[in-house]
């Protein structure tokens, strides 16, 4: 199938351009020239990078090895991404749960208007397996489907008269809006000299960075099927988000001959109630509350005239719920300080909401310049409270140690040294109550998992010893209440993996 040379003429017919691009990768078939692609599968290996989990603030996302199998159907529409992450060469520096004690498999599915995660493909219909609803992920997963090379061309066709074609630096660019569940997103697809989809850019909103771009690059198209179908698929897929790579895959094989792949929605997923943010306030000591109810916990410490909230995580929705829980639990005392344990986005994503609330942010010194820079970035796609009513964030820093005290109670903040997880990690210690507050360094099983060779847990314990902290209880920001004995037992049984 010969490629058709595209003259670089401005104002060319949009549907002709889309058609040529479809023809170029083998979508248009038969004497009636119809789009014959419905399902496909591909397998790849490479690296997947944990977005928002850089070792240093402003640094690249940390890589993990990945093998993946993706099955999709444009007719449903549906996609199943079955991927296994493992540690990269050398010690992981940054988040993403590394170093993993064992390879971690995730199966992420979207089908129609439902999204869920599977313990095994088809979970929910296989005895002994689980299908966990993930309603919040529907849009993102559908977007993954419609930014594949065939998906983007099908979606461009759907956009009809709203699609535009321009020539950008000699390259043909198709710009069009998505619709339905993805309404509001404008896609930009760039074609290479052979009219193959070379790059797809879509906007996204991030609670920390604001408006960001997801950029996917496709290269080296081939018929990768064992049974040849003359459908071409990129042998290399590279994805970037927030300026750094999040995926780099070499496709090892593909079934491009409309394979049998199906995506039935389990009843439990269909009937799952919409996800609601909830905060459970558990008193762990006089004036100390452990705020759980989701995946990322916080701790509220009541001082005489104010509250210190340790961690304002994830996003505005969680942050506002946590703030509300504090107000209900400790009425009439303002949240004066919000302690940010470290810069990873899942822990810092709610800070903008806490800034809007008027709190002073306490964070490790290396974060200040980073937050001031990124919080000034625009949030036009999904404006949060701070974007709508801007105010200058008040950030105070902790170098190695800072003590918050009002004479009656103290909260000590310490910088963790030598952690592979993040350079800006802080832990909190209540010396009277002997309670340690820590994030990500010790995630007690079964909700959490221990790291390979207990690297993170041992480093935490070394810091506790160095600082001579007399810890009795621990409020981990992932998992459940534990004691120092639990930590000692975890690292005591060896690290022999």
């Amino acid at each position, binding site marked *: 199938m010969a490629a058709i040379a595209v003259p670089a003429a401005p104002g060319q017919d949009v549907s002709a351009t889309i058609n040529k691009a479809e023809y170029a990768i083998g979508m248009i078939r038969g004497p009636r020239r119809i*789009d014959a692609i419905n399902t496909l599968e591909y397998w790849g290996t490479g690296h997947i990078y944990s977005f928002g989990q850089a070792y240093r603030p402003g640094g690249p996302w940390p890589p993990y090895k990945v093998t993946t199998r993706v099955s999709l159907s444009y007719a449903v529409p549906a996609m199943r991404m079955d991927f296994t992450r493992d540690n990269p060469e050398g010690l992981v520096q940054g988040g993403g749960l590394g170093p993993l004690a064992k390879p971690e498999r995730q199966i992420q599915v979207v089908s129609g208007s439902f999204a869920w995660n599977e313990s095994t493909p088809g979970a929910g219909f296989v005895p002994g397996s689980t299908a966990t609803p993930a309603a919040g992920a529907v849009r993102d997963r559908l977007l993954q489907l419609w930014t594949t090379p065939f998906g983007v061309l099908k979606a461009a066709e759907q956009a009809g008269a709203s699609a535009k074609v321009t020539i950008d630096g000699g390259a043909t660019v198709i710009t069009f809006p998505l619709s339905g569940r993805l309404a509001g997103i404008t896609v930009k697809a760039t074609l290479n000299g052979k009219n193959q989809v070379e790059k797809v850019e879509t906007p996204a909103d991030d609670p920390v960075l604001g408006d960001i771009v997801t950029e996917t690059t496709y290269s080296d198209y081939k018929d990768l099927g064992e049974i040849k179908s003359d459908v071409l698929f990129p042998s290399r897929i590279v994805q970037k988000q927030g300026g750094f790579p999040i995926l780099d895959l070499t496709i090892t094989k593909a*079934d491009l001959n409309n*394979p049998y792949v199906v995506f039935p929605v389990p009843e439990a997923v269909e009937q799952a109630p919409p996800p609601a943010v909830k905060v459970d306030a558990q008193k762990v000591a006089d004036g100390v509350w452990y705020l759980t109810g989701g995946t990322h916990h916080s701790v509220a410490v009541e001082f005489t005239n104010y509250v210190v909230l340790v961690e304002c995580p994830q996003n505005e929705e969680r942050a506002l719920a946590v703030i509300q829980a504090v107000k209900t639990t400790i009425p009439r005392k303002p949240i004066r300080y919000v302690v940010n344990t470290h810069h990873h986005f899942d822990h810092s994503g709610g800070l903008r909401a806490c800034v809007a609330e008027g709190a002073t942010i306490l964070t490790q010194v290396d974060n200040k310049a980073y937050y001031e820079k990124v919080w000034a970035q625009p949030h036009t796609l999904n404006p949060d409270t701070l974007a709508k009513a801007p105010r200058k964030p008040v950030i105070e820093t902790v170098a190695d140690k800072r003590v918050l005290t009002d004479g009656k109670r103290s909260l000590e903040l310490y910088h963790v040294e030598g952690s592979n997880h993040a350079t800006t990690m802080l832990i909190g210690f209540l010396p009277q109550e002997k309670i340690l507050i820590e994030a990500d360094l010790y995630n007690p099983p079964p909700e959490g998992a221990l790291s390979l060779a207990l690297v993170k847990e041992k480093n935490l314990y070394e810091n506790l010893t160095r600082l001579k902290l007399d810890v009795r209880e621990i409020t981990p920001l992932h998992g459940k209440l534990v004691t120092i004995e639990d930590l000692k037992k975890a690292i005591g049984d060896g690290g022999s993996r």
Partner: protein
Amino acid sequence: MKSSCKKRFGFGSCVLIAAQVTAVCLFPKQVWGQAPSPSASHSTEAHPDLTGVWNGATVAGPYIKSADPLAALLPARDGDLVNFERDGALIRRSNPNKPLYKPQYWEKVQKLDQNENEADPSYGCAPGGVPRIGPPAKIVQTPTELVFLYVSPPAQGWGDAYRVIPTDGRAHTPLDQLDGTWNGESVGHWEGDTLVVDTIGFNDTSWLDIGGYFHSENMHVIERIRRDGDTLTWQATVEDPDVLLKPWVTNPRVQRLNPDPKARLPESFPCSERDLSHLVTKEHH
């Protein structure tokens, strides 16, 4: 000698097959909601009479003479055989109506599908079975039974076949007393103007359709056949809770009455599989 056309979804090609086949390109009609158009001559004992030769033809003669015979006979993109085979395969396989297997069988269906050349019983000239054999080419209806007669298309083979569908109200033989066969044991009854054929007692060797769609011996097939004037619509529902998550309903197929009142059925040619030993790749269509 019939073809069916999946033009509705745009996934099939309406192919005018010339030279060897007097075929007609048919559009599946949604007939279930329509009122029937009965006439006294079509009724037997208050039920419609389905008797007839249902391989209606509109094209006479062996050839389609055309300035570009390839355009008509080898409807390929750019007239290229390679394109034709690969396009045809891809287009047919893009049909979204697939049986929904239990997840533990997904890999099996894929493997059978990929190894079709070896694994498909019909490639080896075995019978098509029910529902794969589709609607009959000729029906003879009596007050107590219907005889369904089938022919193979002239260039592929599962040979001549027949089924007898009793409508005398008898019940099925208990399943555990039935030997599994290709066509199973059928009983028929009328629901209004629709003939409902209920079949059990299958082997597990046949496929529901091309694509690796295997089934169990506990399969239960319900076919619904209805006549509207000169057209016959057939549709099957396959229940097989051993392997399927839910029953599979085939696309409806519409056949037209042969306009020649003296039409005879052609004899199917014997089938002999000779290509397997020469096959070098797994391509199929």
